[in-house]
């Protein structure tokens, strides 16, 4: 056996930086062998899943090897009675969902690009979907992880039981680490039974914070309260209810919203990212949703995301020059930070745009990076503070 490696071509570029080789490991041991070899030769590595978000984040300072995890696409263990699944990092979210649905279960994560995005990519970027309001994000559903460190060390933490407090939770640390600490090779998640029924209440209507809060706090227990505002003016609100008597509960929520149609189909924009040449993520206190929505609209962004969880994707409607975008982001960030929120630029073609804003624990983060990747070979420069 040997690790399959091919010469890279222009399509393999990571945000404009072409690697020299693409490695296609098929096992954790092969990932380890690749990283060890790279360590010996001081080659920089960028791990990749389905590539749906490879252009997010700053370009790597250097990139010799693209570690394509596509061959590690096995669902290793679905313990249905334990509501647990263990999968390799390269399994796509849709493939995982299909495997779990056979037994009437699901991983309650609904990240964008589910057809192509992988378990590893979803974890590394910590993308979340509408139902994060009820079920939490990837870090909340992840119960065990196997990672490969830049020197080739294979390490695991957590396990395959939901309740477990033995040792440090490396899964949390790697979730959202953008490939800068090592490679996520396998992940174990807690699952949920597929909902018996599902309804959306959808209304094209203006919203107030008060109504949004009453929706979120309703004892009919919606799984998500989402807003779509493509043009800064027209808003659509959609509320998802899952479980028994979903229809009746959705109808009850219509009383709160004062408007809307109850349907068995998600709105077509539900949980999607439609345009991500320039893409921002806004976080804000749920009670300040209307102000966040207005700020995004005035800055020229569409707004799609969770009112209840205080997290939305902002897409740029127009092509704007670098200076203008940088200034717009600065203004928007100042406005949301005054509300207690944050603005992160997930994707932009421009290097002159501050992607992260203030990061409160940056010195600690740098020390983590130095310990895990002293040679700065893992996705160098792709994360906060140039980590």
């Amino acid at each position: 056996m040997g690790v399959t490696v091919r010469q890279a071509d222009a399509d393999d570029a990571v945000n404009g930086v072409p690697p020299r080789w693409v490695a296609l490991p098929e096992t954790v041991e092969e990932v380890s062998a690749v990283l060890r070899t790279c360590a010996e030769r001081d080659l920089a590595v960028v791990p990749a899943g389905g590539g749906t978000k490879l252009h997010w984040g700053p370009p790597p300072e250097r990139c010799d090897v693209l570690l394509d995890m596509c061959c590690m696409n096995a669902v290793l263990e679905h313990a249905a009675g334990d509501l647990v699944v263990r999968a390799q990092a390269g399994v796509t979210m849709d493939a995982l969902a299909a495997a779990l649905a056979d037994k009437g279960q699901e991983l309650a994560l609904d990240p964008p690009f589910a057809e192509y995005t992988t378990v590893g990519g979803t974890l590394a970027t910590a993308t979340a979907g509408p139902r994060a309001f009820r079920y939490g994000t990837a870090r909340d559903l992840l119960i065990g992880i196997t990672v490969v460190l830049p020197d080739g060390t294979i390490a695991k933490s957590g396990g395959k039981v939901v309740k477990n407090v033995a040792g440090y939770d490396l899964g949390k640390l790697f979730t959202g680490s953008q490939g800068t600490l090592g490679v996520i090779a396998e992940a174990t998640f807690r699952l949920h039974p597929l909902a018996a029924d599902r309804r959306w209440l959808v209304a094209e209507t203006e919203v107030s914070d008060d109504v949004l809060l009453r929706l979120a706090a309703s004892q009919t227990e919606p799984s998500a309260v989402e807003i779509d505002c493509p043009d800064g003016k027209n808003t659509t609100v959609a509320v998802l209810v899952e479980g028994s008597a979903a229809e009746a509960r959705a109808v009850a929520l219509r009383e709160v919203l004062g408007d809307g149609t109850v349907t068995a189909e998600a709105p077509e924009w539900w949980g999607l990212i439609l345009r991500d040449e320039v893409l921002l993520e806004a976080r804000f206190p749920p009670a300040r949703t209307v102000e966040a929505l207005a700020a995004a609209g005035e800055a020229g962004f569409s707004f799609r995301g969770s009112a209840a969880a205080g997290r939305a994707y902002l897409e740029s409607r127009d092509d704007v020059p670098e200076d203008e975008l940088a200034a717009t982001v600065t203004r928007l960030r100042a406005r949301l930070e005054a509300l207690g929120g944050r603005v992160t630029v997930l994707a932009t073609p421009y290097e002159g745009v501050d992607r992260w804003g203030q990061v409160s624990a940056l010195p600690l983060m740098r020390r983590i990076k130095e310990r895990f990747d002293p040679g700065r070979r893992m996705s160098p420069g792709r994360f906060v503070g140039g980590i």
Partner: protein
Amino acid sequence: METLTAALRSLLPHDSVITDPVRLRTYECDGLTYHRATPGVVVLPDTAEQVARVVRVCNDFGVPFVARGSGTGLSGGALPREDGVLIVTSKMRRILEIDLDNRRAVVEPGVTNLAITEAVRDRGYYYAPDPSSQQVCSIGGNVAENSGGAHCLKYGFTVNHVEACEIVTPNGDLVTLDRMDPGYDLLGAFVGSEGTLGIATKITVRLSRAPEAVTTVLAAFESIEQGGQAVSAIIGAGIVPAAIEMMDALAIEAAEAAVACRYPEGAGAVLIVELDGPQAEVERQFTQLTEICSGAFELRVAADAAERAAIWKGRKSAFAAVGRISPAYIVQDGVVPRTSLPGVLAAIDRLSQEHGIRVANVFHAGDGNLHPLVLFDDAEPGAGERAEVVSGAILDLCVEHGGSITGEHGVGVDKARYMPKMFSADDLDTMQLVRCAFDPRGLSNPGKVFPTPRLCGEVPGVRKGVHPLVESGKAEQL
């Protein structure tokens, strides 16, 4: 120690530094009383800034420090150091902010778990993680141990309900870790790190909306096997109850002796199932549950809050209650995958018979978290040792079945030696990278969690040489 004490006295009010040997003894152990050590000095800071100053002094003197909340931990996580400073957060018990619109509360670490719920209950909210000691345990301790409780199966653990923490890092910096910030999830790594990565001085927790309906059911089975089958069937039916708790005959006997809980007579096992959520959802699940539990010889449904409390009374008092039927006991805290429960319970029974040591089983059946109470008479020579053997063998069983050596009590000093059973040297070395990033000098609660602390100067991991694949030329593609 004297110059250290003098330095601490210059930072804190006089009555916040304790050196009197008698008073120091008060702090010699936490809830796990068979590990004891008298702290060198105890401080009771009032503010985060004071905690930071104390930690900086410890750094100046190179002495270890240990944080302690209410001291209810069951793994010796707050066991003091004789050569160090014990930082007690009991004066820091203010609820700083309650923001129901954003479903959060900001509290100091000494606030008790239940106090948070009590502050918002009238307005229809509560704080979900509920360790059995919730009346007294502090939220800071909960954060350190990532404490759970009966409702974790459905609602998750402390880490899922903490939005931000202000911490004092092991070198004395005051830093905020916030889920909302970009960057590494240091908050996720910090929660459950058992005081080895610093001390939480301000905690933002998420509040949950009280459910529309709650139904609590007690099902009595003739045997523990039948009870176990019912648990599997409940999960198999797609029901995620708020709690599923099980007690065996011996645990019931103890609870009966202690609090007269009046559980059905002659039960080999009782199951307590709590369903909550929207009314319609609870009704459907209750119908399914009744069918699944048709093999039970008695099914009680709580008609009101008082009856619910009566059902829970026996379960909540079980640990303390075994004192009525045994002079001494060890509370174990292992986890197995739920489907392994029947096999593991049978194996525990065999262990019990082999060693002549009674084991009472009380557990969170829904998530496979066992709390076997290993009973012995400490007056009987050798009994304590036999109980230790049984207790350790139960942990081995848990690891063999793919479970964990601790579900909620933590590793502390008590289980550090078991860590290598669950994790490889590489796994542990990798965790040490996190430790070294936060605490390069190893002063924050040393001796806990890890069996063999390595110096942070040593670089773990790079000790393998060339991989066989590369050596044999088979991986020579780069």
